[in-house]
């Protein structure tokens, strides 16, 4: 059983569970929408300012939702010690990491994509550089959140105060990735007269490579004795 095949099995399992508990996904979506709304109330109602900050609001909403969804992703594993069951099957811990992290990334990307029309309406933005570029940028950001998020969600799920601990552990680590994702998304929305998008996208790719590499290498140490 090679690592990729195992990862696929675990990814499929997680997707199946998400489907069967899709009521929870709806709740997550409404939570993100509420967050998007609240940001506009928290700032001034100046529409040009809202438009400028739209990308930031979108990513913050996704970030907050990510903590909930990644926490849940590991709650189902600790509920009946199912993660131990996977380990003992045997499944390579790296397969478990890849499967769960990709699953989290897909979920976050889907959430971000669903939020886009709401962002367009609430903050009066347009997709200046086109939808495909936006989808790609959202994907890179989702991957960059999921890679460190998955490993730290695993750590937090076994510690006390797990709900508080995950954002405490994760948010400082995500600053560079989040910054790049927001900047890149803002450029895709507003337009890129000085051709900076490539640089930000490149940064995002570098972050992804580093985070995924670290996560892949270190996850076995986290879940194995």
């Amino acid at each position: 059983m090679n690592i990729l095949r195992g990862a696929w099995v675990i990814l499929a399992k997680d997707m199946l569970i998400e489907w069967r508990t899709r009521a929870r996904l709806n709740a997550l979506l409404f939570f993100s929408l509420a967050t998007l709304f609240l940001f506009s109330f928290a700032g001034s109602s100046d529409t040009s300012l809202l438009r400028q900050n739209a990308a930031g609001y979108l990513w913050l909403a996704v970030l907050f939702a990510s903590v909930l969804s990644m926490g849940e992703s590991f709650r189902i594993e600790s509920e009946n010690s199912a993660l131990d069951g996977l380990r003992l099957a045997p499944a390579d811990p790296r397969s478990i990491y890849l499967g769960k992290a990709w699953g989290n990334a897909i979920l976050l990307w889907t959430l971000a994509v669903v939020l886009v029309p709401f962002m367009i309406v609430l903050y009066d933005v347009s997709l200046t550089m086109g939808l495909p570029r936006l989808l790609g940028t959202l994907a890179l950001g989702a991957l960059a959140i999921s890679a460190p998020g998955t490993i730290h969600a695993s750590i937090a799920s076994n510690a006390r105060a797990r709900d508080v601990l995950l954002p405490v552990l994760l948010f400082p680590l995500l600053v560079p990735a989040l910054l790049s994702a927001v900047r890149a998304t803002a450029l895709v929305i507003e337009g890129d007269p000085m051709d900076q998008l490539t640089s930000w996208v490149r940064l995002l790719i570098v972050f992804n490579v580093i985070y995924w590499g670290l996560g892949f290498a270190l996850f076995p140490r986290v879940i194995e004795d």
Partner: protein
Amino acid sequence: MVTQIIITVVVTAIWVGLLAFFYWGCERGVEKPRLVGTFGILGLLLAVSGEYYGLFVAPPESAMGDVYRIFYVHVPADWMAFMALSLNFVFSVAFLFKKNWRMDSLAEASAEAGLVFGIMGVCTGSIWARPTWGTWWTWDPRLTTAAVLLIAYGGYLALRRFVDDPEKRGVWSAVWAIFAAVDLPLVWFSVKFWRSIHQTQSTPETIRDPRMQWSLRWNAFAFLFLLIFFVMSRYRISRLARETEMAPPPEALPVGGHA
């Protein structure tokens, strides 16, 4: 150019020296608290004399007058924070390679010491920014990175508090510290890139007056001794705490039971 090389070599030598010193010295410090105290006293003396020098002997700076003098605290504090946290990274990696409990205590001690100096650095930086640029905060790469670093290592200490099993605590905090240490340069680069689009800040990078240079070096060494004092004290606490936390190997009973 030559000065740059000399400085780099000296700093690296100090760093490596610190690494070795902590590895062997901290364990000694557990049994000999007076040794630890000596560093504290030395550090205090150097710091007091260093501050005196910085406040009264060093000349006022051309652009900022007397306001700049806080940088004799701010810069060494930042340096020590980065020293401590880079050492934390090495100790964490070492702990993952070989479960040597000394490394875990060293990692914990250096993280806390780094956090203390980091807070000092950010606070003094903020106090300095106010009269200089009119704001309490600027988003320049150094200050921003330092702030993220503080929040991050606060998280490290929170993680250690919330994990009860000592073995898991050691492994998980080491894993997280590695993530954090790799991440810090990324924070720096991304903020630098972000700021380069907006505006650049000016800081007094070039110090030409020898009295200023001496004052800075003196204070740096003072803070180095204080760093050693903090790490050794904290190491001691960590080691003693662990002794109560982890029972020694059980005695073998004379009567064996073989199934």
